[in-house]
């Protein structure tokens, strides 16, 4: 393992931090200058550590660029080689999202990791969206997982179920009509990750009807309510054979295609299913009755 040199500057910094804590106390401390000389250093209120150190160690700094620690320590004012990589949104990895990972506006921090030329990863940092200090990350397209999560966040979250005749009652051996609402739509361009905007074209792919009497039906359309003149045979219907209580529902499967930065459309890997609330239906039996 390569030992990092502990430079006198580091030593001095440490001592100042030891003695001053969060830059409030100005007790004099002993520090070691670059040529090894120990001097007394006092950081005045409002004075930077660097200025105090420079003043205290005037004449004891050694040659410029000299590292009296004897090893090849990285100069403090030189940026390390490497690049930042976008990791993801801090709370997108399951479990509880710690409050520390939230920004002031409630949004989730963005996570970046510094990658050195040899591939090893160094510091990890979190930033809030819009922070001008967000490092320029190496160009990385979003993963399918990130795209799917974004799709989940914009897919419809509710489904409705309409039944005719209305009023929660129907008759045995009568066509009962079922329908829901599910229109295709486009989201417009959304921010996905830095450097990437995504646009979803979302559409219903399949409908699964549960009639509450043990019978189910799959369709590729949402059905429509019956209106005057409409042939019932063109609609989604179910005939209950026996009287009783039926709890009906419909599940809509949504799929999508996406375009990244206005590029070619591609399918989203995965679908989202949403189920309606259960609708209670009393299935009644009609008895013929002679009237005058």
């Amino acid at each position: 393992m390569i030992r990092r040199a502990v430079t006198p500057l580091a030593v001095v910094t440490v001592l100042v931090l030891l003695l001053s804590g969060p830059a409030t106390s100005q007790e004099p401390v002993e520090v070691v200058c670059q040529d090894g000389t120990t001097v007394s250093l006092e950081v005045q209120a409002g004075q930077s550590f660097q200025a105090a150190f420079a003043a205290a160690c005037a004449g004891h700094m050694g040659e410029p660029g000299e590292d009296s620690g004897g090893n090849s320590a990285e100069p403090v004012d030189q940026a390390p080689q490497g690049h930042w990589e976008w990791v993801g949104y801090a709370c997108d990895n399951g479990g509880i999202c710690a409050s520390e990972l939230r920004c002031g506006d409630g949004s989730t921090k963005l996570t970046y990791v510094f990658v050195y030329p040899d591939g090893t990863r160094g510091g990890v940092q979190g930033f809030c969206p819009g922070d001008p200090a967000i490092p320029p990350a190496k160009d990385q397209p979003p993963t399918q997982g990130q795209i799917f999560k974004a799709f989940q966040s914009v897919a419809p979250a509710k489904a409705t179920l309409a039944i005719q005749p209305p009023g929660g009652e129907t008759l045995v051996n009568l066509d009962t009509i079922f329908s829901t609402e599910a229109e295709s739509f486009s989201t417009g361009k959304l921010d996905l990750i830095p450097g990437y905007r995504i646009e979803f074209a979302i559409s219903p792919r399949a409908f699964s009807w549960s009639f509450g009497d043990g019978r189910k039906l799959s369709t590729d359309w949402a059905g429509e309510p019956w209106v005057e003149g409409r042939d019932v045979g063109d609609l989604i219907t179910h005939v209950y054979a026996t009287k009783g209580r039926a709890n009906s529902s419909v599940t809509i499967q949504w799929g999508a295609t996406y375009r990244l930065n206005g590029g070619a459309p591609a399918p989203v890997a995965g679908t989202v299913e949403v189920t309606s609330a259960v609708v209670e239906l009393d299935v009644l039996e009609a008895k013929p009755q002679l009237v005058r």
Partner: protein
Amino acid sequence: MASQLIQTRLKALAVGLAVVVLAAGCQSQEPQPKMPDPTAEPTTAEPPPTPSEDQLAIPAAVRKPNKAGAEAAIRHYFEMFNYFIKSGDAAPVRKLYGERCSLCEVPIGVMELAQSKGHTYSGLNRIESLRVSMLGKDIAVGFVDASQTKIIERDGSGEVVNRFPAAPEAKFEYYTVFQRGMWEITNAESVK
């Protein structure tokens, strides 16, 4: 960028040392302790008598790329830092952070510098609570509430040269990355 880097390093130093030695004066008012022979080699030449080798080994959990592994790495880091304070042997704690983690290296280096002059330290720090959140599949952050007993630095003659007061609580964020087959601490920050 330069100022940002300096700022980062200052933070690093603050974190490392806030855990080890928070803030203090340096008057010799402590009772004189029994001291080892000041002419003896201060560090690393021989394995210390305690703890055992097993206690110094990186726990198996640290080599598992999951949340529990990241937590184990941070806990072991604290244990090995205490071991370093007690023994002067920094090798076990150095295994837990990357070569470029100046945040980790500097406080150890400072203490080693003192130890090379025959100085010794006593005291310890402790994790009071630790929560780990995964930031990616192999990147995690540990939110640590730490406490510290009084830390005493004595010179080779046993005279107290630095006395750092106990700190009942301090909050830190330790960032860890799973690489080279284990969770490695890459950086840390103090939290106000």
